[in-house]
């Protein structure tokens, strides 16, 4: 299996197996044009992020071997429930934020799905205020604007029990 070399923004070099490197649409595009012997520069990827991404791929391969299902091919994000619980523990909100940007940039669909799911889980059952505090979002609605949109989705459901 051919190895592809990449260099992150902080100068660290990593070797990825070719089939995994190709999961990144961005890397794949550059590989299609250039020789695979060259090192690919990734100025927008930090080394800790690269470590996380490799960790993800390793875990997927483990599970694929264990369950005999080609998860990557199916592009099914949500099967990795057990894995997500693990991935979620040591990923702070800020790290998740950075990782989302990076994975979006690299175009790794499967991982992006998982991260979006992680992020969505963190917003569940939170009140509007808690969401803002948790993610440090600027409140850009005037009281009048907010009153207007308050009723917007009440047509769907009223009062699912929300935790603070």
């Amino acid at each position, binding site marked *: 299996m051919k190895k592809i070399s990449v260099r992150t*923004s902080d100068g660290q070099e990593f070797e990825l197996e070719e089939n995994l490197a190709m999961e990144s649409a*961005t890397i794949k*595009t*550059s590989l299609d*044009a*250039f*020789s695979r012997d*060259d*090192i*690919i*520069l990734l*100025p*927008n990827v*930090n080394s*800790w992020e690269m470590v996380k991404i490799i960790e993800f791929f390793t875990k997927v391969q483990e599970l694929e071997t264990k369950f005999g299902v080609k998860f990557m091919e199916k592009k099914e994000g949500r099967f990795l429930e057990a894995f997500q619980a693990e991935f979620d523990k040591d990923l*702070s*909100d*800020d790290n998740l*934020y*950075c990782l*989302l*940007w990076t994975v*979006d*940039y690299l175009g790794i669909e499967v991982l*992006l*799905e998982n991260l*979006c*799911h992680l*992020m*969505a889980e963190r*917003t*569940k*059952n*939170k*009140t*509007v205020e808690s*969401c*803002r505090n948790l*993610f*440090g*979002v*600027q*409140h*850009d*609605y005037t009281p009048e604007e*907010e009153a207007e*949109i*308050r*009723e*917007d*989705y*009440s*047509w*769907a*459901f*009223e*009062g*699912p*029990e*929300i935790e603070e």
Partner: protein
Amino acid sequence: MTGLFGNRFFTRILKKATFYAIKGGRRSPEKQKEIRDWSDLPPELLSLIAERAGLFALQSFHRVCKAWNSASSAALPQILETELNQGPWFLLYDDKSPKCKVLTGSGKKLIMSRPELDRTTCLATYQGWLLLFQQGCGSMFFFHLFSRRRIDLPQFPDSELTDHVAAVSCSPTSQDCMVCVISRSNDAELEAKVLYLGEDQAWTKLKYSRSRVYTGTIKFAVYHTGIFCFFDHRNDRILTLSTENRAHNWSVINLIFSPKNQSRPGTLLFDRGELKKKFDDMKKKMGLTKGVSISTCGTITLSEGLPKFIFNEIISDHAEESKRNHFKGVWMQPRLKQNPSTYKR
């Protein structure tokens, strides 16, 4: 050594890279609070997240800030698609509390305050609409569970329910809506009461007295292309009432059963014990600990691409207290319109 920055690749990689590079300086995890701005995430990403958060999170999500609000709207069609295609929902209510519980197809539990359901029995559903009969005053009306809209019907001829079963042809908001309620008036006779919502001021009574031909007990009713169909506990034949041009002809149709894996065009699935199968599980999810009895109103849903009829049932724990703890259950297959503004009160 060649790098990434060839002219050819400007639009594909460098442009995107430049976009991210501008943000790049803010992305260091060491600099924490002051750089974090989730509303800055690309809109497509925010929409993806909104989609995964689902319908229930939408209520909070859309109010956080303007960027999240747009993302919510953009994600809405997909969210609805996902949430509503996961099997029928189950509504549970009783006379002791104005709060009712709904278990969605995807397993989420909602608690809503619906005093309008007090002392009512649901005879049929159409998407989010319930056809309700109120004990005591004998009034019949349509009630939309989510928008709480109410459409009153002319006074129903029977003041009490016995073995009444009903079906609705389409949304009660349409002028073409027809309702048919059938019950056994005596040992020899079945009686159907039909109402054309857009036209009639009163119910039309139609008797079926050829009970030697059809002696079954009606357990479920459904409407299909001009015909009301009534299913009995035996299932091998169905009684039909055609409404075309108000001709009101009765007929009996024989059903053919085929093994489950050999479905052909026009196949329907029946489930006479949907709740029975899931009874213990349902009780747990709904937080029912004591002995209970539940009478349910069935519905039509889709299962693996085929129409499936969930029949009316009466289930009980057979404990002494079950009779006292009686609940009403309603299977529903809601479809919420894409344009929510029509549901604003």
